[in-house]
């Protein structure tokens, strides 16, 4: 292999590991399939992230009236910040990075870093979509990028 062919594999993960727990395992499995899942109520259609009992009515035991369902993966930039400091050494080569709060078209807010064109003042409210970064360690990190730039 030449060096140019090896650039596709991301470097070994040197950041804090994703916090995958009993409540979020299915969600992270969705990211690995390149699906952004939202916790969805079968009774009334309300959607949540992260996992929660539906607040609009009584629930079945263990919130069994809800399950993870694919979303559009699209939303609007709600707010963003620019990390100039790498608080953890694993981010040293990435600063400054842009960390966005996104209001998904389905309603819930979710956060991830931006890829592609960095956001600037005046970009709040603009359309974004999810982008996926697969890692050989077995997980997929989500990002957002502007749509139609």
């Amino acid at each position, binding site marked *: 292999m030449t060096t140019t062919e090896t650039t596709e594999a991301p470097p070994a993960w040197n950041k804090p590991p994703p916090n995958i727990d009993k409540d979020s395992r299915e969600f992270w499995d969705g990211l690995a399939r390149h699906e952004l899942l939202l916790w969805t109520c079968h009774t009334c259609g309300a959607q949540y992230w*992260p996992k929660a009992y539906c607040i609009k009515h009584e629930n079945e035991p263990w919130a069994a009236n809800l399950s993870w369902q694919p979303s559009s993966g699209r939303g609007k930039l*709600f707010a963003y*910040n620019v990390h100039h400091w790498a608080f953890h050494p694993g981010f040293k080569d990435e600063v400054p990075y842009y*960390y966005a709060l996104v209001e998904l078209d389905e309603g819930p807010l979710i956060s991830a870093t931006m890829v592609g064109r960095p956001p600037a003042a005046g970009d709040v409210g603009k359309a974004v979509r999810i982008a996926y970064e697969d890692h050989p360690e077995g997980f997929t990190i989500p990002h957002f990028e502007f749509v139609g730039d």
Partner: protein
Amino acid sequence: MGSTQPDLAVAGLGVVAGPQADRSQRMMAAEAARLAIADAGLNISDIDGAVDLRRTGGGGDRGSYSDAFTRVLGLPANFYFVIGRGGALAGLGIAAAASFLQRGLAKHVVLVGAVDDWSKSQETKKHGHRGMAHAEKEGYWGKALGDLRAASHHSWMAARHMAVYGTTSEQLGAISVQQRAWACLNPEAKMYGRPITIEDHQNSPWVVEPYHLFDISQVSDGAIAFVLTTRERARDLAKPAVDILGQGFGEVAADLWWEKKNFQQMAVHNAKKQALAESGLGLQDIDVAELYDCFTAEVLFQLEDYGWCEKGDGGAFVEAGNIGPGGSIPTNTGGGLLSCYHLGDLTGFAEAVRQVRGEAGERQVANCEVALSTGHGGELVSPGMCSIHTTTLLGKAA
């Protein structure tokens, strides 16, 4: 005095300030407790209850210690427990201790909070980490993505307020500058003798934009303790009693933490309503405001949420100099978390006690009858914010 006010008063205060490189949290807690008990004119043997005010679940989670300060100090307490949520310590501690005092289960309770964030940060810095050391938390979404510190997510609130209302970084700087002016009147403050201008604020490095370094609170060591008792007992003790006039509590989650408006307000509404009702006071009765100020925007939000200005007008309000020395609502008069030291809400609570006692030296606000102290914090709920808000009103004993 309204009849609904709680039968509670602060009788003693103990403060350990400044870096404590060679001292443990429990020794700092024990020493602050010793100072508070002596300040009240009490003996160790008078203390029959102890509360450990410990930041939990928030950005600054810290492990507990197994050898409690009560054992170190030899306190003959009948009960000892830990309470706290993020930086909301004093407000919750008072509400919990009140039950023991008012049921006759205790006569004098000492409440103590100690932190060694500065010392710990000096250690973790050696391993390439910047800022405060953190314990791992279950369910923390953003860490792998780069949401690593309180500034990582709190700065969204400033960013959102800027996007919606046009608030500027210079306006946030006005908060930093005015609190620094207060700190320069407080020899105990970390930033005593180091006044700053808006230009200094603008020239301080970006940490997490829109936050400059000077928008961010201190990383501190230290401990603050106070003795809580009933009003009648407090009146017989060494120092002027400071009455608890009223309290209130609010949770962002009660209003749905995924409500978008929670990025431009704090959970003040219910907390304020309860505290004013219990005290029988109005906003105009408050002489000094000690507002939880982990970052500048939290101050801006609270000035709006309590009603000193309209929602969205906070930028212009602080720019006009309303919160500094000589301002219409003296705010964080000891320098606050931004310029004095960060011991959670105990920083502002101790300053409120001193202002009401008339012990605030050069920074004393004339005729200070009523002080407001607020707390804030909580677990980091994905993707959002600290949830709790506590309101405590303190006043000169009649």
